[in-house]
């Protein structure tokens, strides 16, 4: 083979080859922006790659759109036998269902790959994540980004739309804002649960299922009105795992109902604060998990 010079023009060997400012050196804000950007282009690449098999992709979206509706169908079947559940009529339960599954669907779309983290640790592919100059969190979150998960979001949005048209609420600018903020902070709470679950898998690789109790279990819980559950359970998901902020408290406020715990009214607006606290906690847990991984390499 002919000897082809590798480097093109000769260059000084002592200088770093590529002169781009290092995001890590520019402070946490630049690092965050870089992480989000990296998430964006990794996710975009996965979308492009799924579009190669467009038929398969469309089938999956259609499938998830119709089949995620089955758990709402179960609720409809319940209401074919009773007029109200815990004092809530079908449109009101649909509002609960729509808000929590939309939040969950968004979180699952954005961060749904964390349950594979234990596998990555076991098979060693976590190492390749760590040799790249992109925050590990962004890489893991964007890994195998699956646009088909949009199916659940769309289905939730449809139920939510139906519920909004049928509940007996006098809508004001305030309550609309509350609804939007609720959806977003709910998604953030679920995202932080995914990250927490991922962080735990650094320590226990086969513990992917722990997060299911909180995510899938939480969604199943939040679909129903809090009035049918034991008070201890409601208290637990308000103060321990703050799932009640995903939809129960704000939706009860929108519906003009009192919450079963008799909490002061301002608590209903606590969603964003709780979401921010959850995200901070998840961030700390992720760092701790990564540190544990890097000291054990297990």
């Amino acid at each position: 083979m002919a000897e082809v010079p590798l480097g093109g023009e000769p260059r000084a060997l002592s200088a770093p080859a590529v002169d781009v400012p290092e995001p890590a050196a520019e402070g946490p804000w630049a690092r965050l922006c870089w992480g989000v950007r990296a998430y964006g282009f990794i996710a975009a690449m996965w979308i492009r790659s799924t579009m190669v098999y467009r038929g398969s992709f469309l089938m999956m979206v259609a499938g998830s759109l119709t089949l995620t509706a089955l758990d709402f169908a179960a609720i409809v079947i319940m209401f074919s036998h009773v007029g109200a559940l815990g004092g809530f009529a079908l449109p009101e339960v649909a509002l609960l269902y729509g808000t929590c599954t939309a939040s969950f669907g968004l979180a699952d779309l954005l961060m749904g790959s964390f349950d594979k983290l234990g596998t990555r640790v076991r098979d060693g592919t976590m190492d390749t994540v760590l040799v790249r100059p992109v925050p590990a969190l962004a890489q893991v979150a964007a890994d195998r980004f699956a646009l088909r998960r949009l199916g659940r979001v769309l289905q939730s949005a449809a139920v939510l739309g139906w519920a909004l048209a049928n509940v007996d609420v006098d809508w004001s600018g305030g309550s609309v804002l509350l609804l939007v903020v609720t959806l977003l902070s709910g998604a953030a709470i679920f995202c932080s649960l995914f990250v927490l679950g991922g962080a735990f898998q650094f320590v226990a690789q086969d513990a992917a299922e722990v997060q299911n109790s909180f995510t899938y279990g939480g969604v199943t819980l939040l679909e129903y009105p809090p009035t049918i559950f034991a008070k201890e359970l409601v208290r637990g998901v308000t103060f321990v795992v703050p799932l009640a902020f995903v939809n129960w408290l704000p939706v009860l406020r929108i519906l003009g109902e009192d919450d079963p715990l008799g909490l002061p009214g301002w608590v209903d607006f606590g969603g964003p604060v709780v979401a921010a606290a959850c995200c901070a906690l998840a961030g700390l847990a992720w760092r701790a998990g990564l540190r544990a991984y890097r000291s054990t390499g297990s």
Partner: protein
Amino acid sequence: MTDDGFIVLEDVEKVFQVRRRARGRLRRERHEVRAVDGISCAVARGEMVGYIGPNGAGKSTTIKMLTGILTPSGGRLRVAGIDPSRQRARLARRIGVVFGQRTTLWWDLPLRDSYALMRRMYRVPEARFRANLDRCVELLDLGGLLEVPVRQLSLGQRMRGDITAALLHDPEVLYLDEPTIGLDVVSKATVRRFLRELNASLGTTVLLTTHDLTDIEQLCERVMVIDHGRLMYDGALGGLHEVGESERTLVVDLERELPPIEGIEGARTVRTRGPRQWLAFPASASAAPIVSQVADGYPLVDLSVREPDIEDVIARMYSGL
């Protein structure tokens, strides 16, 4: 950073706490495993170093510490003046890593897409990226494979693809963990030729772990041998022979079949087959006096001296130390 090296290790240690279930019991016992047990060395910029040792000797652990994946338990470590465990992301853009056993590429994507993603992750300017990719494609013979999903590549193709991926951002150091494992002869030769060329023309520092000693023979002036987490040898490849007290072999062809040659000072006959006989003597000794003794006492037709096999040398080192 000290001036004595580009990669510097000073008393680097890595201790793992392993919990193992004691036989027949439910309780687990804690064990301490010293995977890397006080390694000190320095590698200069532009060197090409072989890093060898048996399975579980601590090679991969060292590489993982040098790349910042693992945090050392003790000692001091610098790569290009950077502490890998503290500034992993900063270091990442100055090093390239190839894990022979697993790919850093995206399994379901065509090579081209993986490379495009690498470009963005490493923020490589477009022109530089294209130039690097073109050269790698040419030298590593990847033309026509860029549109193929990684999972459909053969092992050799995938390895060449992985090496390309590790070089698109012009790393100053390239770590290769078993780069030729499982490859066919042609792929091995391509990879070796490429690495030599890379080192010669760009001055890229290369640290290479391998089981295939031909890699070392053909690529590395310097070799480090590690076992049980300790550095057993660090020096020129040739020097290994002396350390290992290995033997060279004198192969003689006599006129006819004779009983084993006897009475040669400093050598002994280890094998005979027909008129050919094999005599072993220490690698550090000169062959000349032995040849003359044989020529004096026996009807010599032809002879040759065989250098010791490195695998043999290393096997001796391990058993002797």
